[in-house]
């Protein structure tokens, strides 16, 4: 393996911001990426994650802040001179060039000798296992193969940084899983530094060393997958981390370790992530798998129990996914080891440590048309 990433110590983003016609799509992004890290930028569409990536690539100029590599500014360097690799959501392969020539393009731009180009292209093709397709045009390949070409094309130049913009979102579910492993394998074996944009939290959690969760152009939380999975900073991050149940409740008692929250008789003991006082309106986050229907096998967990009406029952193989309605009319998703009767009342239980209480007021920003502007801007 002779393809290897060019080395640097750290990539620093200082207060990076980008606005489109007075509307900011990205605000005050601060991040330090160490060489060899796999960072995922995670967020719903229009959250500014693609803007961030395009700013780093140099396809969009910054309106605020600086980007530094080992202390040297790169945001003032033209995109073609940054020496990064980029994988686009729609692959953006050159349709008139064969697989080999697509991969060779970046090397030829760097005026590398012909024999060296041939050797490295062959190596990159072998890396993504496309040997028998080397002379085909991109149009003759399947989506997954095209994505492999795009990845080979990005890594063959031994980039300092690889940028990936939702590279798997156009693939089917099975292929997406395969390519996930593939990208992670290449990242590790080539020692790449990768910035990966996705809206799929599962993808981000499984691939990245660290995650950056964005919303409306603002960073919500930065941390390892474990940190974000177990300790989301606010209910928005919780929502993204699989806390499918988000219910608005009132705080009734505040204890030493736990607080009690309730809504129209639906009461649970929970853990406050920030100090709360009695009477506060809060948003409570629970993962469906942490809220169980009580049965012979599932005992009540530390006396924490409440009741709800069964509205939907789905069979999920090992267990049942049950949709319930609280007395206050809010819908929740819970798990059950048996199929409860629709319309009946079931008893639910949860570990208070896994019921998280967040302040209800998250700064609400306005309409989500940022992505459209973003796209329009990139296409200049």
């Amino acid at each position: 393996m002779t393809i290897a990433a060019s080395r640097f110590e750290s990539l620093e983003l200082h207060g990076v911001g980008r606005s489109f016609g007075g509307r900011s799509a990205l605000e005050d992004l601060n991040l330090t990426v160490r060489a060899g890290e796999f960072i995922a930028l995670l967020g719903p569409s229009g959250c500014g994650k693609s803007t961030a990536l395009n700013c780093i690539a140099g396809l969009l100029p910054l309106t605020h802040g600086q980007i530094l590599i080992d202390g040297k500014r790169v945001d003032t360097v033209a995109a073609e001179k940054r020496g990064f690799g980029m994988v686009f959501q729609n692959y953006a392969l050159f349709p008139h060039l064969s697989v080999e020539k697509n991969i060779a393009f970046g090397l030829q731009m760097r005026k590398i000798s012909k024999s060296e180009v041939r050797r490295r292209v062959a190596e990159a093709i072998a890396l993504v296992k496309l040997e028998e397709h080397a002379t085909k045009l991109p149009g003759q390949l399947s989506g997954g193969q095209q994505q492999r070409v795009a990845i080979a094309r990005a890594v063959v130049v031994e980039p300092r940084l690889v940028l990936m913009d939702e590279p798997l979102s156009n693939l089917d579910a099975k292929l997406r899983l395969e390519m996930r492993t593939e990208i992670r394998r290449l990242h590790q074996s080539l020692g790449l530094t990768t910035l990966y944009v996705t809206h799929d939290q599962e993808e981000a959690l499984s691939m990245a060393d660290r995650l950056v969760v964005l919303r409306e152009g603002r960073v919500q939380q930065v941390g390892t997958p474990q940190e974000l999975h177990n300790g989301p900073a606010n209910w928005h991050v919780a929502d993204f981390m699989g806390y499918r149940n988000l219910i608005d409740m009132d705080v009734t008692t505040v204890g030493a370790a736990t607080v009690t929250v309730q809504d129209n008789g639906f009461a649970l003991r929970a853990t406050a992530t920030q100090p709360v006082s009695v009477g506060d309106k809060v948003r409570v986050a629970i993962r469906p798998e942490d809220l169980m229907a009580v049965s012979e096998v599932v005992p009540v967990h530390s006396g924490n129990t409440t009741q709800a009406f069964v509205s939907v029952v789905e069979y999920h193989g090992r267990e049942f996914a049950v949709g319930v309605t609280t007395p206050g009319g809010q819908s929740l998703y819970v798990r059950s080891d048996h199929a409860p009767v629709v319309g009946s009342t079931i008893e639910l239980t949860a570990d208070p440590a896994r019921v998280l209480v967040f302040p209800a007021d998250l700064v609400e920003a306005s309409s989500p048309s940022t992505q459209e502007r973003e796209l329009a801007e990139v296409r200049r």
Partner: protein
Amino acid sequence: MSVLTIKGSGAGTSSASLRHRLAERGIDTSLLMLVPALIFALALFIYPFSYGIGLTFQPSAATQQAWGGGMFANYIAFFKDSFVFDSVWLTMRLALPVAVFNVLASIPVAFKLRHRFRGKKLLTTLVVLPITLGTVLTAQGLLIFAGRQGWLNRFLIQIHLIDQPIQFVNNYWGVVFSLVISGFPFAFLLISSYLSGIDPSIEAAAKVMGANWHQRFRRVILPLLAPGLATTSILTFVLAFSVFPSARLVGDAMGATRVMSLMAFRAFGEQNDYPMASTIAVMMGLIELVVIALVLLWRSSMYKGSSGGKG
């Protein structure tokens, strides 16, 4: 296919509708709706066209006497009568440079007007506006503006750049100007639509991979644009090759711009020689076909697939 269907249904008769069964045999009954159009085409295009070709083989007595060759007298006259044959070169001399100029000049303009910016609509409208002017209006404008007593000459004399009026019209250049005015917006519209068909992220990818604008244009944009350039040059060439009104109005109809269509009109209108007029028209078509074939031959050596679509 049909055998399979019959076997599949189990019985000898298929339960599918008649239309479906015909479709299995490759017959599409909805094509019958084309019949009226075909009749029109036959009556108004194919018949007169064949009649015209037939005429070329019925030369007038005068032509036969002058050039001999029996039924081919018209064609012999066409090639041997230098007064007629020279018009091929005169027309080509106008149409080829104009077509090349229109295409080459449209590329940078289309590129510049590709992005979104303030005033883009106004600028595009200004560029495209001449398409709405007829040839006669353009010719009239050129005569008034660029004639010997026109504003342009008077202005140039008043600022003492020249002391004798320059002849801009009633010669080769007058027709060139007129053809550029009417052909350029047309080429521009075509090329900008081809350009917008190239996915912008392809260019972005080339940029990140280290290609400067010159390399991006030559190695990525140009090959993807080539089929569009070929089509555009064919269309502007044909447009310029069949020039008639401006060759007469702003050209030198008996000299430098004695184009083929003028010769055909002369044979028809002044000499009442229908067969010769038809011969010149048929030869015009043939020459156009040769040029089109050459362009298409060049195009077939280029990449032909999709250009990534508008993402």
